[in-house]
């Protein structure tokens, strides 16, 4: 009887370990977290701008994503309106194909920097919930707002308001 009980307990004792191992996956980057360093993920496509001490938008996009097409002119406007005051927008393309990435950039000619995450390293680290998703990061490198999807003028207005608020904040010590 003791043997049977012991064996049952052993089997049940392994269960949480199995559950933990099966469920291990990187957590989504959420407001309040520090954003992973952009330079550390082997991104191609373009030179990474200086982001230290600046308000940064990191936008994940793909050429096959229709809302991403709608978002590019809006991000170009935001870069034009707030760039002088310290906003940096980085568009991270997640296309598998370099030619699809290049064709999209050539078509929309964004006024902001685009880089190519062809190996899906950064996007896997960040665990974006949908395409497109943009992360608004304050001067200390902390994510303050996350926009899942792009909803036209509404998203652009929200971003402008949030950028304005973050630009008016002083950099906090990291």
């Amino acid at each position: 009887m003791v043997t049977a009980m012991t064996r049952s307990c052993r089997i049940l004792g392994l269960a949480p370990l199995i559950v933990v191992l099966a469920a291990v996956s990187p957590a989504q980057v959420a407001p309040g977290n520090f954003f992973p360093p952009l330079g550390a993920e082997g991104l191609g496509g373009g030179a990474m701008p200086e982001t230290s001490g600046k308000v940064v938008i990191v936008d994940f996009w793909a050429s096959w994503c229709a809302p991403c097409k709608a978002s590019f002119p809006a991000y170009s406007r935001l870069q034009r309106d707030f760039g002088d005051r310290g906003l940096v927008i980085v568009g991270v393309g997640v296309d598998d194909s370099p030619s699809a990435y290049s064709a999209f950039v050539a078509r929309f000619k964004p006024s902001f920097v685009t880089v190519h995450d062809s190996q899906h390293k950064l996007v896997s680290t960040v665990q974006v919930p949908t395409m497109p998703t943009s992360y608004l990061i304050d001067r200390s490198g902390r994510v303050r707002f996350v926009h899942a999807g792009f909803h036209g003028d509404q998203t652009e207005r929200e971003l402008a308001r949030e950028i304005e608020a973050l630009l008016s904040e002083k950099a906090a010590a990291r």
Partner: protein
Amino acid sequence: MKKLRTRHILIAALALGALLQCACTSTAVRVRPWERAALADDIMNPDRDPLGAAMTEHVYFSREAASGGRGVGGSGCGCN
């Protein structure tokens, strides 16, 4: 005693199975948002050829007397 032992093993096996199923359903077979290029391709759209779709629809409702049976306006009576 043997009956009790068998019951314990059965309970343990059931619990383990349930936990494994819970763990697998949350992580396995999940296409991540950034991996949906193939799904977003136009070839995956069943209505990408409007003329072909209209012809297929015409054959379908003529043969099956099912006009409107695919979600368009109509009663499905076949009296087109």
